[in-house]
């Protein structure tokens, strides 16, 4: 009986450890995907000559959090960086014609 209980506890502990490890691995993968998407968007903003300093700072914050093992925070920062990069792309694209609205004529 005691042995059976010990075995069950061990199995449970192993399962829990496995779950935690697979959760951590998933979170790291999620970060990597989010970071890559943010970098791609920021690169596109670069080709449009319109990167934002805040995108670079947020990407750096994501990297720092990932290096510290905080993948939740890192993923959130990477997603924020992607949103900023996409906003800068939208700005550059829409300003291609909108700049004329400000012109002194």
């Amino acid at each position, binding site marked *: 009986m005691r042995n059976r209980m010990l075995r069950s506890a061990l199995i449970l502990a192993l399962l829990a450890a496995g779950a935690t490890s697979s959760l951590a691995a998933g979170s790291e993968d999620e970060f990597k995907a989010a970071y890559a998407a943010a970098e791609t968007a920021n690169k596109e903003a670069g080709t449009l*000559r*319109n*990167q*934002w*300093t*805040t995108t*670079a700072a947020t990407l750096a914050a994501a990297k720092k959090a990932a290096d510290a093992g905080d993948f939740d925070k890192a993923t959130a920062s990477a997603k924020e960086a992607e949103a*900023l990069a996409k*906003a*800068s792309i939208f*700005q*550059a694209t829409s*300003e291609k014609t*909108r*700049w*004329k609205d*400000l*012109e*002194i*004529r």
Partner: protein
Amino acid sequence: MRPRSAIYLASAALALAALTLAGTLPSDAADKVDPIADAKAFKKFFTDKFPKVKLEDFVNGPYSMNEDLHRQWQEKEQFPPYEFSLEMGKEMFSKPFKNGKTYADCFPNGGIGVRQNYPYFDEKEGKVITLELALNRCREANGEQPYSYVRDEMAALTAYMAFTSRGKPMDIKIPDDPRALAAYENGKEYFYTRRGQLNFSCATCHVQSPGERIRAEILAPALGILNAMPIYRSEWSGMGTTSRRFTTCNSQIRGVPLSPQDDEYRNVEYYLSYVSNGLPISGPGARP
């Protein structure tokens, strides 16, 4: 449909088409690149906005915006903070390179009293050449390392060259070359394009809000803004080149600055200088 109704409908359609056409014509005309009309409209905008400011006074930037500030500027000019830079620039300008030549060998009239002609469009290269770029090219052609575009050495050299040109009217030419017109138009586009997370264009501050405060500073009007370059800025506790001004403007609005003397900066300098043609060179300047 009754014939009369059909006639009314056709007339209405024709009138609508005519209105649409009339609506597009001025826009098409306005889209044509016309630097002379631009410069005229630019000056009119600022002189209408600030009727008490004399045209030639716009080159004094925020110090032209009201009497108190103008008095501050006059007092500052008695012991100008850019004087040390001017002395340094004069010495550097006359000191020969290792090969015995000097900056004077690279410029028309020995580089004296020529600031008002920069930037110019080089038809061989098909690009805008600024004074800062010409100075570094002169150095490189004579076997010297180029200077940083944003540091004191470049500010000192351009300060001296501006000083020898003080009072001369800005005289930027656009040659009969479609590439020159394109450079001018691209410069204009850069000037009015919003960028950075703050969504500001150059015009947001220097067309829409000159004379207004932004934090503790008073914004300068765009008209004549480059005639005073380079400038001593109290905020920087030092001198700043045109390149420094452009790159810091970009970072202040949370945009990643381009490299100094990238095409965009050269073109916007070309545009801004052209629309200030006729206003006197007043550099080196001093700003709060």
